[in-house]
């Protein structure tokens, strides 16, 4: 009897990449879900043996899914969490919630093979006689958009960055699903307005360039985050203007650096970068980017909102790509999802 496997991830690329890493010749019936709710619905209607579960998803994320599975009275699948969020707390949390294993994303064929063998879910001898690949190759012909690709590599990079920050501060960083959009000048302003609302904010910008791709990493803090940021970094002194810059520089170094390293590794570019520049302090968001003077028309924007659990800290990381970079980026990312046989 074949093993019933469910892959649950909001990213099409991640689903495909994972499906490709399953041992070839493994007799599986494979199904997919785009979020936790879909997975739960499928599991309720038919039984599955194994669930590969992502953590950051819309509608119902991985944690909520694990939580819901705990109250199931019918048999539930063995859950292997596959996530870019490699914070130690995240790994511990999912294991406490019943996941039998955690696998770092993106996973290689060897890693998945070893993991399945070590969990006794697959043995080397267990291959179907006709030795067909586990995955139906027709699924490999799916079309991927630039947004899909960019969202997935941002997702992985975001997890790495959060893990470094979590290491330094010993906290848990809540990770959202990165948003990817092409924005006109005016729309960027609106997107920013929405994320910070009417409060004052402070921002740091760092420029990156490499292999025909240019972008700015913009980190925007709501000014109400400073007291808790100081507390978190163990600063006891009075919060002065200089101290706030210090907090901004430290947090942006630690968030942006590992993020870029992870992005660079995935698309194989060693970016040159500028020193981070203080864009503004205690200003209205509208004053950060001068829309009237802007010479650019459209930008490809990746937005990630980081929040620190139990602290009033939220910051917005925006990657703003120049229009010229988009076609180069598209080209590069298409190699990433191409079949590697």
């Amino acid at each position: 009897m074949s093993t019933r496997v469910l892959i649950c991830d909001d990213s099409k690329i991640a689903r495909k990449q994972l499906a490709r890493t399953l041992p070839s010749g493994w007799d599986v019936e494979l199904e997919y879900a785009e979020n936790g709710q879909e997975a739960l619905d499928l599991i309720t209607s038919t039984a599955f043996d194994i669930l590969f579960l992502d953590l950051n998803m819309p509608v119902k994320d991985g944690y909520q899914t694990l939580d819901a599975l705990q109250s199931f009275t019918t048999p539930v699948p063995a859950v292997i969490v596959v996530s870019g969020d490699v914070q130690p707390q995240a790994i511990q949390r999912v294991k406490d919630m019943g996941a039998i294993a955690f696998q770092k994303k993106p996973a290689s064929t060897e890693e998945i093979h070893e993991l399945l063998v070590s969990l006794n879910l697959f043995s080397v001898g267990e291959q179907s006689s006709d030795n067909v690949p586990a995955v139906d190759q027709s699924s490999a012909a799916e079309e991927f958009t630039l947004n899909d690709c960019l969202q997935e590599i941002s997702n992985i990079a975001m997890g790495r960055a959060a893990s470094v920050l979590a290491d330094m501060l010993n906290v848990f960083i809540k990770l959202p699903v990165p948003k990817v959009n092409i924005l006109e000048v005016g729309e960027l302003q609106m997107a920013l307005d929405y994320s910070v609302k009417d409060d004052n904010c402070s921002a740091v910008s760092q420029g990156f360039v490499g292999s025909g791709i240019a972008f700015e990493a913009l980190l925007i803090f709501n000014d109400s985050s400073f007291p808790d940021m100081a507390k978190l970094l163990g600063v006891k002194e009075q919060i002065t203007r200089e101290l706030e810059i210090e907090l901004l520089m430290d947090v942006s170094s630690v968030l942006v650096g590992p993020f870029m390293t992870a992005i660079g590794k995935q698309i194989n570019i060693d970016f040159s970068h500028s020193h981070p520049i203080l864009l503004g302090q205690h200003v209205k968001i509208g004053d950060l980017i001068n829309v009237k003077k802007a010479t650019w028309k459209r930008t490809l924007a990746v937005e990630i909102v980081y929040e620190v659990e139990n602290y009033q800290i939220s910051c917005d990381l925006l990657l703003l790509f120049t229009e010229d970079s988009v076609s180069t980026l598209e080209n590069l990312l298409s190699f990433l999802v191409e079949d590697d046989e």
Partner: protein
Amino acid sequence: MSNDAEGIADLHWMFDMLHHIDVGLAVINQNYEVQLWNSFMENHSGISSSIAKQQSLLSLFPNLDASWLRQKLDNVFALKTPIFISWEQRPALFPFNSYRPITGVADKMYQNVAIRPLSNPDGSVKHLCLVVYDVTDVASNKISLSAANHRLVRLSQAISKK
């Protein structure tokens, strides 16, 4: 043989370039001891490379906030990611004088400093590189611009009150 000689010549001009580039370069090990000290660091600090080498960076500049800097250096070692220090948070991290003491407006050199991890072939990080940029002109311009703006705001407030 000639290949070796060429290799050494290459190394020589590469080192010459690092030594004389107009950017401060210092490499330290895990005990914060200086391993490399280029001529920018020598000339601006007045501490020669032979004296700086093997001494702790923290003891070379007694007025520098040692516990603050140590925390930054330790973070770079532990997190293996560069950390940046802006002139806006520490105007002159190293006590250097401005390049143009006569015609310039600033006495001290404003600096941006990047602390970067240097990784060994096996990925471990046992050395750090401090890169010191002279940003005196940018800083002076920005300071005088914001001072002028400040004066304008007060002036316009004074006028509107009348």
